[in-house]
């Protein structure tokens, strides 16, 4: 048996997650020794016509063309990894679902909206089956390696379902609420090693909410700061709107 055929694909996104992979630097060469990389636009032009053992998909589904593409990818692969917030939860692309698509089109293209068709943002798993999830905007490289290894070995990868706060405490950060600003750490899935708070910023919720978020509690805490409720809702929906808009 040869090395597994692995391919990277992107739908609508900034392609920063594949850049995270390319940015593994010389470590990338070690990863390449374990797999047979057959498609990866970011760093190569070669094309593969056969079946993929592993397809790694970035980006959201935002029009008919990308829906068709992701269905084709699913048909041609044995295992599919969705990576990056745009693919796993819709990410920032989902924000546009909070208003009618026609409004967004008019705001950007004026009276020429007919030239550029678009649909609501959907996550990859709202269109096809996903086997592994790597959340984050961008993905956290150590988690990428962990999931890649699990997928290649046929093992499951349980996404951490506890709050970012747990990792944040281990990292001995001072709580952002104690510094007078709101942070989505309490309701956001861990797994990023509290990356943003380590760098002095707040959590923006890019990995999606834990499966049982204490939203009411979180909103109580936020209200204590006498904030415009719309701003808070905006904040919580920066990454999660695509999930919410179709689940509701």
């Amino acid at each position, binding site marked *: 048996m040869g090395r597994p055929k692995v391919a990277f694909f992107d739908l609508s996104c*900034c392609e920063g997650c594949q850049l995270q992979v390319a940015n593994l630097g010389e470590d990338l060469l070690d990863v390449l020794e374990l797999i047979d990389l057959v498609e990866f636009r970011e760093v190569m*032009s*070669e094309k593969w016509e056969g079946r993929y053992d592993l397809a790694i998909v970035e980006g959201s589904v935002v029009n008919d063309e990308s829906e068709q593409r992701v269905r084709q990818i699913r048909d041609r692969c044995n295992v599919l990894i969705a990576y990056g917030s745009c693919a796993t939860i819709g990410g920032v692309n989902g924000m*546009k679902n909070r208003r009618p698509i026609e409004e967004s089109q008019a705001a950007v293209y004026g009276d020429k909206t007919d030239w550029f068709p678009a649909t609501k943002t959907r996550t990859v798993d709202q269109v096809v089956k996903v086997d592994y999830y790597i959340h984050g905007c961008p993905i956290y490289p150590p988690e990428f390696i962990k999931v890649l290894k699990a997928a290649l070995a046929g093992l499951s990868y349980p996404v951490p379902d506890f709050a970012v706060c747990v990792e944040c405490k281990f990292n001995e950060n001072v709580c952002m609420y104690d*510094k007078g600003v709101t942070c989505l750490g309490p309701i956001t899935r861990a797994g990023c090693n509290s990356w943003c708070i380590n*760098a002095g910023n707040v959590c923006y919720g890019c990995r999606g909410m834990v499966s049982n978020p204490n939203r009411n509690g979180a909103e109580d805490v936020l209200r204590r*700061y006498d*904030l415009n409720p719309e701003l808070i809702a*905006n904040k919580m929906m920066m990454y999660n709107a695509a999930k919410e808009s179709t689940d509701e």
Partner: protein
Amino acid sequence: MSRNLSVNVEFLTRVEGHGHIVVDVAEGVLKTCQLQIVEAPRFFEAMLQGRSIFEAQHITSRICGICACGHSLASIQAAEAAIGFTPSEQTLKLRKLLLHMENLDSHVLHIYLLAAPDLLGVKSFMGLMKDHADAVRRALRMKKACNDVCDILVGRHVHPISCVVGGFTMLPGPKELEAMHALLLQVREDLAPTVALAATLEFPEFERQTEYVGLISDDGEYPLLSGDVGSTDGVRKAKEDYRAITNEFLLPHSSAKHARLSRSSYMVGALARFNLNHDKLHPKAKETAAAVGLKPLCTNPYLNTAAQLVECAHCTEEAIAIIEDLMDRGVDPSEAVIVGINENHSIPVQAGSGVGAVEVPRGILFHHYQVDEQGIIQEANCVIPTGQNLQNIEDDMHKLVPELLDRSDEEITLALEMLVRAYDPCISCSTHFLEVDIVR
């Protein structure tokens, strides 16, 4: 000559997204020559409306994974101008350092992994591994170094964490400065063989007069983060008048808007900056220009790659100088900010309008925001370098194709791909160009 030619190159672009090169020649006459951009729009400008100005950097950084730091810097500049905030001298210095790292990182990627394979006759860096393994390792090492510097400075390179409206949420101490310094000294060392390799490359010959647009200033600094907007046709305007520079217009074959100024099109990017401001480059960068034979005014767009190499030398030296200056003076840790969406009212906000104009790897980038007295975004507009270059690329193609009609389809297609790639429209689009379909 009764030549018929139909080139249809399909590719995907990064920010502007999916696109194709379409060329049609019938009976020796050029009928169609387009760079079609067919990406589904992402509506960032619409998404920003109604949100806090303090979220603009985080969101607009996500326009592009490669230029995330550049978008962040343009966004922050526009946001601070809109709300009437003036950043500190230390903040500006660190932002300049970040911008140098952004330009350096992106240029290294383009020169080695995108442009070099064409010039060395292989399909990708995987092909380079055979005969140029040292060069590939050097490229990945240089990229990693840029990445590591950004990790230290702003938490990460793709979607930086700590550079926000108001300043930095995390500041480097002496140890961090030391680490960044060491990484950049290694980049400086790797640049010498990079220049030597580049000097052996033969770039295609092609000339077309056009207008070059970028930041200009009256001081001695090579302008990247501040200045007015100027052109080689003698235009000079304040950045707030950017709409009179870009004159954006829509075409049915491109979901990215096109731009024009004094002529039918203009060019932005490393070559435009070199043509406008070469006399302000660091001496090491001038040496590099001499080594690769780049002279102003250069009207060969293929040499944008050479201009990027010249800027690599400039950015490396300037970044080292900034770090050494910070090592001498020390970084004041009390300047670290805690902002969030400004629920702690740490930053005074007033209603207003602000424009950011920053020279990012692919050229001048504009962000424009209008906010109300609460700092809520009323209007947002981003003008992206690749969009500004689209019309110029098409004009180049219009001149280039008739000059090449005596060549084979394969040679013409490759020349067109290399032309578009020279503009470095984005990483992924460039490599995808190689999916080519020619119908006679």
